[in-house]
């Protein structure tokens, strides 16, 4: 057996992240102080920046390594950049938050970096095992992170719930992969596709079953209906910084793998999955938006809104054309900025022992903390799809993909859903600006790192809305080798 070539420079970004994760762990072990671990966050940030710098030179020339199990194409790189941005923002908001909540452990940052590593592998894997390993690396780190506040019952409940259901869903995913291997004899995405078309396995019951299992497994991770049940509880209970990370990072990673597996390995089954996903997309958007209307907790509201956003992204997935795929990439990046931004505001409005996550707590902050409220308004309106914000452009691409693919009803249901969503996003602004506060929220702290994250998120949201050209053409170039 020939030993496959080792192409380390291709995985340089991943190596950097891994090295820094270990570094953080080591420093944590040998550092004398029990408290004040904020500098570990700074070290993690440096790791992310270095990883980003190693990502840049890989652009432009798609290459694959490790005997074709790992690729460094535009698609993977776009996602890696998105994950690095998400991790960067998450760590920024974590520095202040973990100190406030007393969960300032070194493991926190190490696990965040490991989760990022898993995401990067998911986007870059062209072999089912690599994708699965990435998914597990990410998931296990997140299970632990969700339960970081071990004194808090809701956090522990959230972690347990996420772990049990997540493990179950991962089982489905693995079973689906096993069935594919059984039917085609390969785990390489390209080989699977060519085997299916060569042997004309379109009606193979094994493959159809695997399609269903993969849909369930990925559907769980992206929080699509009917596999969304865990989302509100987990998002509500987990530390808010981790919720932001889950809502953006995990979703993006799951979509990256979903799109690659379905488009590269199973394009022959497109008519089958199009009809399944059509239904799932509509159900996800509609349920997410309608249930969000009646929420009283901002974290649950954002959880349901994130379900709805998964639905919009699935619209682009169903459209399946180049516009749709690049739309998914653009959407996930825009969503990262606006959603982490919104969670940052949620964090900043709370203090130790007083989270202030009820929507009614937002009454009157519009004039008390004008900049914070203005930032929140920008994020919420962006999620509602109001121009000229990033969320509008993202929805614009998604729906134009649907129209281009002649899924007119899907586009119409999508925009109507978007109009419904305006109601609950506006409800928060109504409270912030139109109502007087019933009780004073005082003594808020604004750690500089969190404020910086907020500024980055606002700038990102506005930039993607007003000057979307660059990122969009980058996204379009990125999907070149995918289909």
């Amino acid at each position: 057996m020939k030993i496959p070539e080792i192409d380390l420079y291709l995985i340089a970004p991943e190596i950097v992240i891994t090295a820094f994760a270990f570094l953080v762990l080591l420093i944590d072990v040998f550092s004398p102080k029990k408290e004040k671990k904020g500098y570990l966050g700074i070290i993690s940030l440096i790791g992310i920046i270095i990883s980003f710098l190693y990502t840049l030179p890989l652009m432009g020339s798609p290459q694959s390594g490790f005997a074709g199990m790992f690729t460094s194409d535009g698609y993977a790189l776009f996602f890696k950049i998105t994950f690095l941005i998400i991790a960067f923002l998450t760590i920024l908001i974590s520095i202040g938050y973990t100190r406030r909540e007393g969960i300032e452990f070194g493991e926190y940052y190490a696990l965040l970096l490991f989760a990022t590593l898993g995401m990067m592998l998911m986007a870059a894997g062209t072999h089912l095992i690599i994708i699965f390993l990435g998914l597990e690396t990410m998931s296990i780190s997140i299970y632990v992170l969700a339960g970081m506040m071990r004194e808090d019952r809701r956090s522990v409940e959230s972690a347990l719930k996420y772990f049990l259901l997540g493990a179950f869903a991962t089982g489905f995913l693995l079973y689906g992969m096993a069935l594919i291997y059984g039917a085609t004899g390969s785990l390489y995405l390209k080989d699977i596709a060519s085997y299916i078309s060569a042997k004309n396995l379109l009606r193979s019951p094994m493959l159809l079953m695997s399609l269903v299992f993969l849909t369930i497994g990925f559907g769980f991770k992206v929080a699509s209906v009917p596999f969304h049940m865990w989302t509100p509880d987990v998002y509500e209970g987990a530390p808010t910084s981790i919720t932001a990370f889950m809502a953006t990072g995990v979703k993006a990673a799951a979509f990256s793998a979903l799109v690659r597996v379905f488009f590269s390995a199973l394009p022959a089954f497109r008519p089958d999955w199009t009809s399944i996903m059509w239904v799932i997309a509509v159900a996800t958007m509609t349920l997410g938006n309608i249930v969000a209307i009646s929420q009283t907790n901002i974290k649950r509201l954002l959880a349901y809104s994130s379900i709805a956003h998964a639905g919009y992204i699935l619209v682009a997935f169903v459209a399946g054309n180049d516009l749709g795929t690049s739309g998914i990439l653009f959407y996930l990046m825009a969503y990262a900025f606006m959603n982490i931004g919104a969670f940052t505001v949620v964090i900043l409005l709370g203090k130790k022992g007083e989270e202030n996550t009820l929507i009614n707590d937002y009454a009157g902050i519009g004039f008390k903390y004008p900049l914070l409220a203005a930032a929140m308004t920008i994020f919420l309106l962006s999620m509602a799809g109001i121009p000229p914000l990033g969320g509008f452009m993202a929805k614009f691409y998604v729906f134009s993909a649907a129209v281009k693919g002649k899924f007119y009803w899907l586009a119409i249901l999508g925009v109507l859903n978007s109009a419904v969503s305006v109601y609950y996003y506006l409800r928060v602004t109504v409270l912030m600006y139109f109502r007087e506060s019933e009780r004073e929220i005082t003594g808020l702290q604004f750690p500089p790192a969190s404020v910086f994250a907020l500024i980055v998120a606002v700038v990102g949201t506005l930039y993607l809305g007003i000057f979307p050209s660059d990122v969009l053409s980058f996204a379009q170039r990125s999907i070149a080798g995918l289909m």
Partner: protein
Amino acid sequence: MDILGIPILTLLIFFPIVGAVVLLFINKEKAGALRVVTLIFAIAEFIFSLPLFFAFDSKTAAMQFVEDWWWIQAYGISYKVGIDGISLLLVLLTTFLTVLCILCSWTAITFRVKEYMISFLFLETGMIGALVALDLILFYVFWEVMLIPMYLLIGVWGDPKRRIYAAIKFFLFTMAGSVLMLVAILILYFINLKATGKPTFDVLELYKLGIPAGTQYWLFAAFALAFAIKVPMFPFHTWLPDAHTEAPTAGSVILAGVLLKMGTYGFIRFAMPLFPRAAFDLLPVVSVLALIGIIYGALVSMMQPDLKRLVAFSSVSHLGYVMLGMFALNMQGVQGSIYQMLNHGISTGSLFLIVGMIYERRHTRMIADFGGLSKVMPIFAAFFMIVSLSSIGLPGTNGFVGEFLILLGVFQSNVVYGVLAATGVILGAAYMLWMFQRVMFGKITRPENEKLKDLNAREITIMVPMVILIFLMGIYPKLFFNKMDVSVERFLKDFKGKIEMKTDVPAPILKAEIVKGENR
């Protein structure tokens, strides 16, 4: 084209935002300074807009002062702005009314002045942008941008009782209509892309497209819904009385004066020229809804106990005329319709100002609380009289010219519509004069009304330009018609040319496709 090397339309769009940024740096306690700075910016904006009127070439129907830059080139989305005879006057109306709105908020807005002024300047940017945009996506962006400041104006500074309900209703109605328009814009884009191979959202390019009739119906319906809600046409008008009644005076003025015109302007700039076949075939539907609006609006106005609601419902009636005239599809009808858009901005805007002035003094708008005001407030009474008569359409005032032309046009195209519309004129006179009589004449029944102060210098300054315009537009309409003649002629020629072209020969492809998509 620029004036003195300055891209004038871009300047007009973004100058108010510069003002808003300047306001950010002023201490919010200094309400006086905030007001003055905003006023300076509003007046400067108005002055900047004046050269448009004088430099405008009224001999060509082409777009003028055009600026065309790529925004998102890959999709053919451009930053393309320009004006013709139809939008020119509406732009001027916007900059003019904004100045008056800032003035009339001087004492009415006492809290959160900074945020108020910033919202107002953003609103102006949105309005000008929507009026000059020649790219569908650019238009859509500005169209939505207008929503947020107006939503805040109603929700924060509105009448405490029902402001939140009114603000949300306003936002959701407009939003629900416009998202379907977005889908229609996208479908149009892909039809054009397929036909010409050139990605573009440029309206002038899309005008040239021949779309199969079956498709046109769907697309027109989506555009018409968005615009009909904004106009508002019966039966989509229910948000209007709430929004108008709850909004602060300046909000009502700008809502009536400009925002409603976005709906009618949308019909004449987008829905009708893009989908002429559908517009022509659906003419009876639109006309009948407009007629219902005229008569229903007038009847409901008559029964309103609240002055502001009365004026709000009169808007429904007036805008019915605008729609009816536009769909008469002849020179008189369309010109009258555009003229009436301006008139309505001035007359109804003035009426809201008047109601605002009286509300500031008495903190009530109920007709029953007044009576005999002409004795204590003679200057006020004079202005009120002129404005009411202009709203009724008395010869010599602007209202007459517009209504007369519309009726002339409608009678030419359909006598029955003409007769019905004319009854609206009578009803209009009835509710306005009856209201005027109840408020201004008779004995003073309430002691509070005896000591009301007459208008002060600032309020007179607000009303005088309005009155001058009322008479100028009533006596010398040629000044304004000159500017729009060629553009309207061109609009009608293109419209009729496209209807005679048999666009309905190809099978309604899209309809079949929609059905197919549904079954997936």
